[in-house]
Each structure stands twice: as structure tokens, then as C-alpha cells.
């Protein structure tokens, strides 16, 4: 089920009631586990089996791997876990993509091979829980942590409903220890959680769905060549939509967990005010970028094997990060563009240290603002590949953005106003708050201001009436 649905309100009210009944902690954990399975099954009940499979494989493999001393057998166990988790991911998420590319290669080679289009439904959030369970077995393999003894706690770690389908991607050490002791929220934490939930829903329902999805869909879905204004408005609208959709989900997840007394890591920190691309990846989908850093970039050698290998490792990480987002070459190009930007930034930084100094000082100077604006400009170019369904569409939009064709007016004046004003608002808010956190800001403001803002969020939420659309990141 999605957070922005009536079903979730009922579900969450029941979960909270059960969680605050005077029951044993183990019973409460069982309740949370069953609730998490119900939360997932409410999409497509059979896919619950995948969750169980992933849980059982990693629980058993983790235990055996920890006690196994024989290197080859440890590797075999790691292979079983990787094959189990990545195999499911490959089949459900990349099966069609692999087949399509194989067919293309055959045709290039002059072989007339036609495959039936596979009818595979992507299980919601499979990329997220796969990475979460992988971090568990990889940590044990790398001797960074011990296996979890309790199947209940491990199952809850894999399945914990607030972050199950779209993150934040949590490491075992961040969540499992919280299951060891009874956790309930204080009244203040409960209010903080509800405030974050309201803010997250506002971002998703009002900004992403009600105001920004329209202009983005109209421009990207149009058969016409967009004019420069339309191309930019559509891309900026998508830029805001993807942020509000995904950061909105993460904010909801953090708020919901807080209502239950649990703490989840931050996933977004005002990314559109990033000064440079390494700063951007410390602010955008933080739990994924740190996962890729710890389990891909560093094992590949990170920056320990010389300049050339550092650049290659960086690019490989970004390309695979792109592919993680979707089974399409456009996502690979999106990742590749980010890798390319990181290359240039690293090259300049290695010579001058300019960007590093700017980020480390954290000062809001004119130079930093200009660089943040330039970074945002480049990020928008990458979003074209993320959103466009194919390279032809991406090329059409890019040509429009840079005035390389005589485009047509596509978007209504209302759409233009929505796109430009909301994105300007988001950028300004990100810039002003870039060194702080939402709750810190909320506590600094007078209570009546927060009360009014909170009411506005809820009223706009009621008013927008966009109640059940899926989050974009569910498909990843």
C-alpha cells in the first residue's frame, strides 16, 4: 500500500494502537513483522514469497558464512547469497532488458532471432530490499559484523514497513540494534513523526502529483518539438517532481518510523543546493550513494590504486548506479553523465582544491551560490535521460533546451507558472536550509508559525485530492 492512501491511514492507526498496547516487546515485534508483510502483500500477495526467500537465504547463509573458515566455502556461500538476491533482481527487473539487448545483438550479427516479450511484473521495491539484505551478507563476508541470531529481528530488518519499498536503505547496524530494546515514541517524537509525515505527504501529493507531474508529463509526452521555454519548464518540473516524490517518501518513512519510536537515517539533505557533484551525492539518495560507495566503489579499489583506477572506479560505480534505477540504457547514460561530471570536478579539485574548500567551509558565499546554480543546471540535463523513454525523446528535449531547433509552444501558461515558481521556491529553500535539518528549523520558529504552516500543508493535502498514485521510485 502507498502512504498517500486511505488504506494506509487505517493500517497505520491500527499498527500504532497495537504498538502502544501494554504487550511484551517480542509480541510487539511480531505485530510489526506481520504488519510489514500485510503492508507488502497489499500490493500483490504472491510477491511476499520473494521477501521470505530473501530473508531465509541471507539468514542461513550469514550464519554459515560467519563460522566457516574455508575460503572457498565462504566464497561459495557468498555466491549463493548474491545469486539468490541478484538473481531475483535480474529476472524480475532486468529480464526483459537483457532479452531485448540479446535480440538486438543477434540482429546486428545477422541472426533472425525474435523473442516473445516477457510478461514480468516488477515486484515493488525489489531493488531496495535486495540491496539491504546484500549489505548484511557482504558485511559478514568482509568480517565487518556478526550474523543476527534472532530470525525475528532479522526478518523485521528485511521487512520493516516504513522503508521496505523505497528506502532509506538501512544497514543492519542501523536498525537491528533498535529491535533489541523496547522502543516507543515519546509524545514529542510522535509529534515530530506526524509533522514529518505531513510534510512528506505534502511534497508527494501536492507538489509532485498535483502541481508538477502535469507540466513534466505534458512536455515529455508531447509529439511536438518543444520550444526552449517549454523544454526547460518540462525538465525543471520533472526535476521538482522527482525530488518531491522521492524525498517526500523518505520523509514519510522517517516520520512513520519515528512515531513507532525508531530512527531511520536521512536520505535527502537539500540536494538542489549542492555545490558540485560529490556534494550532490552526499545530499541526494544518501543511503544509496553510501551503499554504492561501501559495497562497490571501495571494493573496486576506490582511490587506493592510483589516479587512473580511481576515475575508472568512479565511472563504474555511477554507471551501475544508473542501471540500478532502471532497465534502460537511458538510465546508464544518466549515471554516466554523473560519473563524467564527477571526473571533471575531481580533476579540477585535485589541481586547485576549490570545490572541496567550498563544500567544507559550508559558507553561503556568492561563489558557492553561483556554483550551486551551475550544478543544478547540469543536474537538470541529466534528468532528461532519466525521464525520457528513449534517446530520440531525450535528444528532442535537449535540442529544445539549447535552442537547436525551432520548437513549438506546448505547455499552458499555468503549467509554465507552476514549473518555474515551484522550482525557484525549492531551490531557494534548499539554499537557505542547506546546513540545517527540517526539525531543527521547526523548533527554532515560533510555535504559531509552525502551527499555521502545518495546517497549510494538511489543507493543501486535502484540497489537492490526489490520493493514490504510486511513488516514482517504487518502480526501481
Amino acid at each position, binding site marked *: 500500500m502507498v502512504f498517500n492512501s486511505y488504506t494506509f491511514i487505517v493500517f497505520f492507526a491500527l499498527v500504532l494502537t497495537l504498538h502502544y498496547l501494554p504487550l511484551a516487546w517480542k509480541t510487539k515485534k511480531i505485530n510489526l513483522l506481520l504488519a510489514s508483510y500485510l503492508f507488502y502483500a*497489499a500490493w500483490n500477495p504472491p510477491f511476499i514469497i520473494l521477501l521470505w526467500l530473501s530473508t531465509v537465504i541471507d539468514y542461513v547463509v550469514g550464519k554459515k558464512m560467519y563460522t566457516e573458515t574455508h575460503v572457498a566455502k565462504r566464497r561459495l556461500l557468498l555466491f549463493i547469497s548474491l545469486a539468490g538476491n541478484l538473481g531475483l533482481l535480474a529476472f524480475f527487473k532486468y529480464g526483459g532488458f537483457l532479452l531485448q539487448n540479446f535480440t538486438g545483438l543477434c540482429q546486428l550479427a545477422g541472426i533472425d532471432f525474435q523473442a516473445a516479450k516477457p510478461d514480468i511484473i516488477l515486484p515493488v521495491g525489489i531493488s531496495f530490499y535486495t540491496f539491504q539484505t546484500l549489505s548484511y551478507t557482504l558485511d559478514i563476508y568482509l568480517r565487518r559484523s556478526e550474523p543476527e541470531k534472532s530470525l525475528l529481528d532479522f526478518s523485521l530488518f528485511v521487512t520493516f514497513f516504513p522503508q521496505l519499498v523505497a528506502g532509506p536503505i538501512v544497514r543492519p547496524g542501523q536498525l537491528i540494534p533498535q529491535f533489541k530494546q523496547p522502543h516507543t515514541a515519546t509524545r514529542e517524537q510522535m509529534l515530530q513523526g506526524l509533522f514529518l509525515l505531513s510534510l512528506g505527504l505534502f511534497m508527494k501529493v501536492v507538489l509532485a502529483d498535483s502541481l508538477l507531474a502535469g507540466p513534466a508529463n505534458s512536455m515529455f509526452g508531447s509529439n511536438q518539438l518543444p520550444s526552449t521555454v517549454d523544454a526547460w519548464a518540462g525538465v525543471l518540473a520533472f526535476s521538482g517532481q522527482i525530488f518531491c516524490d522521492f524525498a517526500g517518501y523518505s520523509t514519510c518513512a522517517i516520520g512513520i518510523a519515528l512515531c513507532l519510536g525508531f530512527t531511520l537515517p536521512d536520505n535527502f539533505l537539500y540536494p538542489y543546493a549542492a555545490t558540485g557533484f560529490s556534494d550532490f551525492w552526499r545530499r541526494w539518495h544518501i543511503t544509496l550513494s553510501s551503499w554504492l560507495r561501501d559495497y562497490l566503489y571501495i571494493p573496486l579499489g576506490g582511490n587506493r590504486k592510483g589516479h587512473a583506477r580511481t576515475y575508472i572506479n568512479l565511472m563504474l560505480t555511477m554507471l551501475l548506479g544508473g542501471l540500478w534505477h532502471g532497465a534502460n540504457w537511458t538510465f546508464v547514460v544518466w549515471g554516466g553523465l554523473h560519473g563524467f561530471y564527477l571526473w571533471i570536478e575531481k580533476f579540477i579539485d585535485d589541481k586547485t582544491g576549490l570545490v572541496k574548500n567550498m563544500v567544507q567551509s559550508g559558507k553561503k558565499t556568492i561563489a558557492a551560490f553561483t556554483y550551486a546554480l551551475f550544478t543544478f543546471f547540469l543536474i537538470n540535463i541529466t534528468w532528461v535521460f532519466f525521464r525520457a523513454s528513449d534517446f530520440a525523446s531525450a535528444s528532442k528535449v535537449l535540442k529544445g533546451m539549447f535552442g537547436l531547433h525551432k520548437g513549438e509552444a506546448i505547455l*499552458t*501558461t499555468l503549467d509554465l507558472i507552476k514549473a518555474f515558481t515551484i522550482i525557484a521556491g525549492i531551490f531557494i529553500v534548499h539554499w537557505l536550509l542547506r546546513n540545517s535539518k527540517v526539525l531543527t528549523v*521547526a523548533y527554532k520558529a515560533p510555535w504559531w508559525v509552525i502551527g499555521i504552516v502545518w495546517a497549510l500543508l494538511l489543507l493543501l493535502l486535502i484540497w489537492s485530492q490526489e490520493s493514490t498514485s504510486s511513488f516514482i521510485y517504487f518502480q526501481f
Partner: protein
Amino acid sequence: MANPSLQKAAWLMLAITITTAAAWEIHLRKSGASISYDETGPLWAHHRKKVYMPSEEATVFIGSSRNKFDLDTKTWQDLTGETPIQLAQEGNCPLPVLDDLANDKNFKGKLVIDVTEGLFFDIFPGNRIEINNALKYYKEESPAQKLSFYINSFLESKLVLLDKEYFSLSAKLKALQIPNRKGVFEFPIFPMEFNHVNFERQSWMTDRFVNDTSLQQQVQKVWLFVFDMLKNIPPLSTHDLDSVFASIKNNVDKIQARGGKIVFVRTPSNGPFWMGEQMVFPREKFWDRLLATTRCAGIHFTDYPVLKELICPEWSHLTPADAVVHTKELVRILHEEKGWKFSTIKSR
């Protein structure tokens, strides 16, 4: 962080939210607004599930908005003792639904198909979007969405402010009608008195609309806008039209082979709308050919004095009062002339 500021803020938030929402609801009711349902995906899917009722207990209606305005579901139910299942979708071509029902082996019931030629023969671009979305929703509806639908329907039945079509943020912004740049396509909006939808998916216009010619003219202007659009669209080629007829016949045959019954209905339209329709879709080339190809029964409003006399205030849809007359006549014709049997025919 341990200070009580969020508690005070929360109380204030609750007070403002409840007061404002209540004031908005009262204001809307005082200005004459009434309950209306969002007729898309979930509600459509809810009714789609009922098509498996035994044929002696229900009749399925597909088509476009005319079927939704012109069929009075209560009158139908009272006269026939059967449930009308309204699956028509405004502004959309009904052929995807015909295709869906034809390929659903469990559907063996009675089917009334509204023929609004401009939509039925599929010449408007994008006139299958909503109906295809509804079909997709029906096929993919999750258990969570089902529960959300019941909660949402309950709330919609109590709160006027939940009329998404006219009172949502998007609708209100669109109602500002900010002028567009030259060449930008934007479909004009209908006055809110024109179309309200009940839980049975019947559409109805308000008394104010029925009595206010300026509101009717607003809708007439929308139809003129549609005619202008139509001018830029090339007519269907003979080959394409042949394919459409072949596809309809194929689907009709499938349903009839399972024992289903089908009737095509051409509901009333008047004025410039009807004149335009006659020019673009001459009866012998479309309506007559449809009946000849499918060998189905048909009811054309011009063939029946009672139907012929009905007036559509905005040229295309009947008033609630005339929908009752239309429905009674429809039941009579089906029963007396087309051999349809109903559980209970009470009276005309």
C-alpha cells in the same frame, strides 16, 4: 529539542485545519454544490466487477457521456427490476470496453452500446486514454486500492469538497483560465453545474444548468471548440473504417456466441451538434452499416417520436427529467419491439 513547541503547534494546526475544512464545506453547500463522485478508475472498476451477474438480473451499458446522462438508473431499475451497470466513459470511445467484455469468457449478459459517432468511430485523438486507464486499473487493482476505494466512496458520499472534478486544487487553478500562448492546446472547462456523477456513475446536470441559458451556451462553446478540432483531423480511411467495423463484428459475435444480447443505441442530440454529426457521419454509412454488419438490434432516436422530441439543452445531453422519459421509452422499445425480457415490467 525537548521543549513543548510542537504540542502547541499541533493544537493550532488541528484547530485551523478543522475550522477551515468545515468552513469550506459549508460554503460549498450554501453555494448550491452537491455530492459528486470521481467516476474514473476505482469507481469504474467497482461496477465492472458486476458484469457477471446473471443476464436476467443486470444490463451493462457502455459508450460515452450520452449514455451516462440519458439513462436514468433508478427508472431503469424500477421498470425492469434489474441492475443497470454503467460502464460508459465520458469523452471516450467504448470499443476498448467492448473488446474487454468480448474477451472475457465469463461475460454472457445484456449489453447496451451508445453510439456517439465521433467517439465511437474513434476519430478523436486520445479518446481512449481514460477508458484504457480504467481497464488497466480494473485488471491491476490491489487489495489496498480496493479498501481505499470503499473509504473514499464513504467520504465522497458525505463531503461536497471532495468533488475532484470541480473543487480540487488542480481544478481551481485551471478555472483561473489564464490565457495561453498561441498554438498551445488546452481543452476548455465545463461549468460545474453541467456534470455531477452519482455512485451508479449516472451523470446529471443541475436545475440551475437546466434553467440558465448562459451556462448552456458555455457548454455549446465547448462543442464548437470540439468541432474546430475535428476540422483538422483527417477522416478515417476506408481501410481503417473497414477495420473498425470488422473488429466490432468480431467482438459482437463472441458475446452473442456465448448467449449475450446486444443492442446499439443512438441517443438524442440537437441543433448544430446534430447537424454536424449528420454531415460527418451520414446515417447510411455509419449507423445502418453498423447494424447490417453486426446483425444487432438498433434504436436510433430519430425513428421514435418520443425520443425525437427530446431536447438537449446544450445540444448533446438530456436533462434529468428527460433522462427519465428516455429511459422509459428505451425499456418499452427493448421489451415490445426488440424482444428483450426483463424480470419485472411494472409500467411505462
